[in-house]
């Protein structure tokens, strides 16, 4: 017997995407409904901090589940997944920064858990996060010269790197 799930009232009414479009008419470029998500919102890169603060403080998105990146060659996309316990769902934020100078404001001040996610995106995709408390490489050693998840990175026959121990 299939029991109907209780209606997720918060997720449906009022419509979160419509509220966001109304609240940030200049900054929300595009909203789409996605299966499995509360919605997908494309933002202007400059607007990430006020939108995130609004979502955290007034729309119950208390948890930043993921910060990732995509290399689209001309631009680089930064993707945020925010989780709300009250709405029981993820909201996806997306923004595009130019590949020549990819940088965006850090959200580590709003969600401390975003700290390492942003370090990972910097390490592998070369996206700089302004005002990040500690933007070092996460997986690769300091001094590594590539951001290896970029399309321009070519796999090569491995060459030994110079390894320095701490006392050297």
């Amino acid at each position, binding site marked *: 017997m299939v029991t109907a799930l209780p209606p997720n009232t918060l997720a449906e009414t009022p419509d979160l995407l419509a509220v966001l479009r109304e609240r940030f008419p200049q900054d929300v470029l595009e909203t789409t409904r996605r299966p499995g998500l509360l919605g997908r919102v494309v933002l202007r890169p400059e607007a990430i901090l006020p939108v995130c603060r609004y979502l955290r403080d007034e729309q119950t998105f208390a948890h930043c589940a993921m910060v990732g990146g995509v290399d689209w060659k001309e631009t680089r996309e930064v993707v945020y997944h925010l989780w709300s316990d009250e709405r029981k769902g993820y909201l996806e934020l997306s923004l595009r920064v130019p590949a020549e100078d990819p940088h965006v404001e850090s959200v580590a001040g709003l969600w401390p858990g975003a700290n390492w996610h942003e370090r990972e995106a910097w390490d592998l995709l070369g996206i700089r996060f302004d005002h990040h408390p500690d933007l070092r490489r996460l997986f*690769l050693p300091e001094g*590594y010269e590539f951001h*290896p998840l970029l399309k321009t990175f070519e796999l090569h026959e*491995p060459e*030994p790197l110079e*390894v*320095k*121990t701490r006392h050297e």
Partner: protein
Amino acid sequence: MTLPTKPLPPAVQGSADGSSAPGVPFSEIETVRAKEFIPPAKEALRDVLARKGTDSLIQPVFNWAGRNSLFPLHWGLACCAIEFAAAFGARWDAERFGIVPRSSPRQCDLMIVNGTVTWKVAHKLITLYEQMPEPKWVIAMGNCATGGGPFRSAYSVVPGVDKLVPVDVYIAGCPPRPEAMLDGILRLEHLIQERRE
């Protein structure tokens, strides 16, 4: 069925009613046995020294002692460490070869690199190797430590731990079974036995 046992000397056999037996106490029995052992040992040593000379004897003695008490560093990098741990369990019992894992590199003379080494951890591996006292040996356990394994061309993986430290024995397998690890250690023991300074 009873195993043939050597009869104990009468001094340690208590009387039937449990009272303390008269005679030599147990501790002195041990001393007597050791004293009995010393003269023939001295004689044998004198014989060997007369035949081979002092210098040629000391190195084999050190080699013999070292190879029978290899202390590997107790650390794990990846799934090979599970096999490494299993080798010290009840089924394979690596300690019967005198192999005792130690937690400090300063007490070790053998480093078993068991797993994928990334460039991020490479300087820590070198630091651990440098902290080990001489003489020391390195075993590359598994395909990752031997040559990078399936991650050889990855951007973050050291393609073989011999790029960082000198390796004496390579063990193939992904991961090698504990038997293979023990075989590698026994081969290293042969290398140590033939070592000449």
